[in-house]
């Protein structure tokens, strides 16, 4: 499944400072790809350092917003959100500076 993954707010530093990743994620026989599955795929395939800055337990660490097609994943079922081909998933760390 073709997905566009974007990292921002400093999270791009965990994947070699590349913000936009066009990826092909294997559905592993499942009918629907869930965000749960995508998170573990990202952790294995994209995160090159300090994985604890991206995940905590089986979800993202506190302070990270997840957006599926420009919409907060809290509104679509968080880890249970299912993804479609060509979806855009954004992971962004909240900023505190000024």
């Amino acid at each position, binding site marked *: 499944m073709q997905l566009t993954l974007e990292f*921002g707010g400093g999270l791009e530093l965990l994947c070699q400072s590349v913000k936009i990743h066009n990826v092909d994620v294997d559905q592993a026989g499942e009918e629907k790809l869930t965000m749960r599955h995508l998170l573990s795929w990202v952790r294995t395939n994209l995160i090159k350092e300090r994985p604890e800055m991206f995940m905590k337990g089986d979800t993202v660490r506190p302070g990270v917003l997840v957006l599926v097609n420009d919409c907060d994943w809290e*509104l679509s079922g968080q880890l249970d959100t299912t993804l479609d081909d060509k979806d855009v998933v954004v992971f962004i760390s909240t900023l505190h500076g000024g």
Partner: protein
Amino acid sequence: YLGLEHGLSPEMIYRYSRHLLLPNFGVQGQSNLLKSSILVVGAGGLGSPALLYLAACGVGRLGIVDHDVVELNNLHRQIIHAEAYIGQSKVKSAAAACRAINSSIQIVEHKEALRTSNALEIMSKYDIVVDATDNAPSRYLISDCCVVLGKPLISGAALGLEGQLTVYNHNGGPCYRCLFPTPPPTTACQRCSDSGVLGVVPGVIGCLQALEALKVASAVGEPLSGRMLLFDALSARIRIVKIRGRSLNCEACGENAAFTRQFFQNFDYEKFTQSPLSTTPLKLKL
């Protein structure tokens, strides 16, 4: 003479004429603005443009909170401060700049750090709060205090080459804790003084904070509540995304929230976020 009916003096009608001409703003919008009061917390990178535009556009009473002094390494982004004010209070410097461009509004100086001991008293005097601070504990403190007092919060942030903006605690929308119930690890909380910031990035976000504050104050347009603006300066990309609504389980604004004035005053924000409300910046070696 609609302007005079709304209590605008001939000088005000002349000064704000470009606002009065706007069909979607007009005399009613300007009149609302002149009757409103806005507090800007932080007279730094975000506060500089926010304060200048709020003063210029005719907010009736404008408060400024900051405990810091102007330093030379602030000036690349904090355009409200002139070199002549280096070493002096940021509040004093910012207030002088605001008065110089609009002597007809009231500017209130709060030369102190915002803390649980003074926040309720200071913030209760204003209709709207603009968060232009630079650290995580201040962001929780300000949001919680806005929830306790029922004030809308215009929240902006900038770091490196990115910025973020939203309106909290407005029209049934979420508060800061609804989005971020647990503080991030301290290693994820960089400040401009540690990581750098391109000067004009807080400029863009601070202007947009002034715009959102002005919209809420004048009751014109759709504020950025329930939505968040994400700005990437390097690629010139801006996303406006839909965020969650108010959380029923939120510890600050949820159904069973225990956030009273008393609880707020005793809350230890530095312990909660494991980071200090203000710091001395690291020295740069190049």
